[in-house]
């Protein structure tokens, strides 16, 4: 088994420290929102989780393109890892959004364009994992996975811009406060700093988890090869 790289250990430590600092910034540095109260604090990590979800799907699409060009197995592992992490954080984003919506919109769920496109995006990537699980040949699985990750990426900009393109009650965080939005608020400088720091921190969380998941993927590849060898 390959030893853990020193740089990864450093990244682990930095990520944990950043996550602690971001949590402290959200709870102790950012002020309480005047209308929504404490639940508004969910917003910082809710958006950051959404950012990691979309980043994961972007990395998967890029890894898919590179895999199709080079045929190197490593890029398939990167793509799968990025999708898995993206799905975990997109799930966090959807569930925390629902929790925030309950006191603000007076409902756990509504088929608003942003919520609907985010759910479709999550389901598209769930289908990616199901597709892969149904193909035994590793090369075919990687090729199909790469194409699917590239095509599936269409759902990401659609989700991101849905709150800007369609009539929606979901607030647009950066940009204009549209009149139809329920629960939008003007960020004070401290709120903006806590928000930006959360985005920065979650980018580190993504990089750290991706590295760990790619190492796991390589290990899984090794097991698959050993199995084929012993069975031959």
């Amino acid at each position, binding site marked *: *088994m390959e030893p853990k790289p020193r740089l990864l250990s450093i990244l682990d430590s930095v990520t944990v420290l950043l996550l602690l600092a971001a949590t402290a910034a959200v709870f102790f540095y950012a002020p*309480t*929102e*005047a*209308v*929504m*109260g*404490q*639940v*508004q*604090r*969910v917003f910082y*990590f*809710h958006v950051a*989780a959404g950012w990691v979800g979309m980043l994961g799907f972007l990395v998967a699409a890029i890894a898919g393109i590179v895999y199709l060009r080079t045929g190197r197995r490593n890029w398939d592992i990167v793509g799968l890892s990025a999708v898995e*992490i993206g799905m*975990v954080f997109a*799930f*966090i984003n959807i*569930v*925390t959004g629902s*929790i*925030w919506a*309950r*006191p603000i919109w*007076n409902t756990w769920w509504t088929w608003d364009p942003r919520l609907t496109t985010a759910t479709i995006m999550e389901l598209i990537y769930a289908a990616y994992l199901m597709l892969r699980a149904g193909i035994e040949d590793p090369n075919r699985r990687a090729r199909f996975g790469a194409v699917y990750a590239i095509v599936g990426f269409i759902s990401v900009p659609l989700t991101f811009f849905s709150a800007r393109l369609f009539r929606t009650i979901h607030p647009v965080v950066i940009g204009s406060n549209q009149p139809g939005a329920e629960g939008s608020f003007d960020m004070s400088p401290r709120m903006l700093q806590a928000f930006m720091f959360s985005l920065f921190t979650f980018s580190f*969380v993504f990089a750290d*988890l991706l590295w*760990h*998941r790619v*190492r*796991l993927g390589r*290990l*899984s590849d*090794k*097991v698959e090869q*050993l*199995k084929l*060898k*012993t069975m031959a």
Partner: protein
Amino acid sequence: MYFLQQGPAQTLDYMIAGYAVIFGVMLIYLISLYIRRKNLSQDIEVLEELEQHQ
């Protein structure tokens, strides 16, 4: 709904639920990575032993 309220809405419970989900799901994912790694390491040990016997 909020026009007549005196101060911020009482939404502490929802905030706690939100952060429980955030840290809970992240923790479950980390544990799943750890368990999968442990299982794969055991598989490699067994398979390498089998290979040596062959």
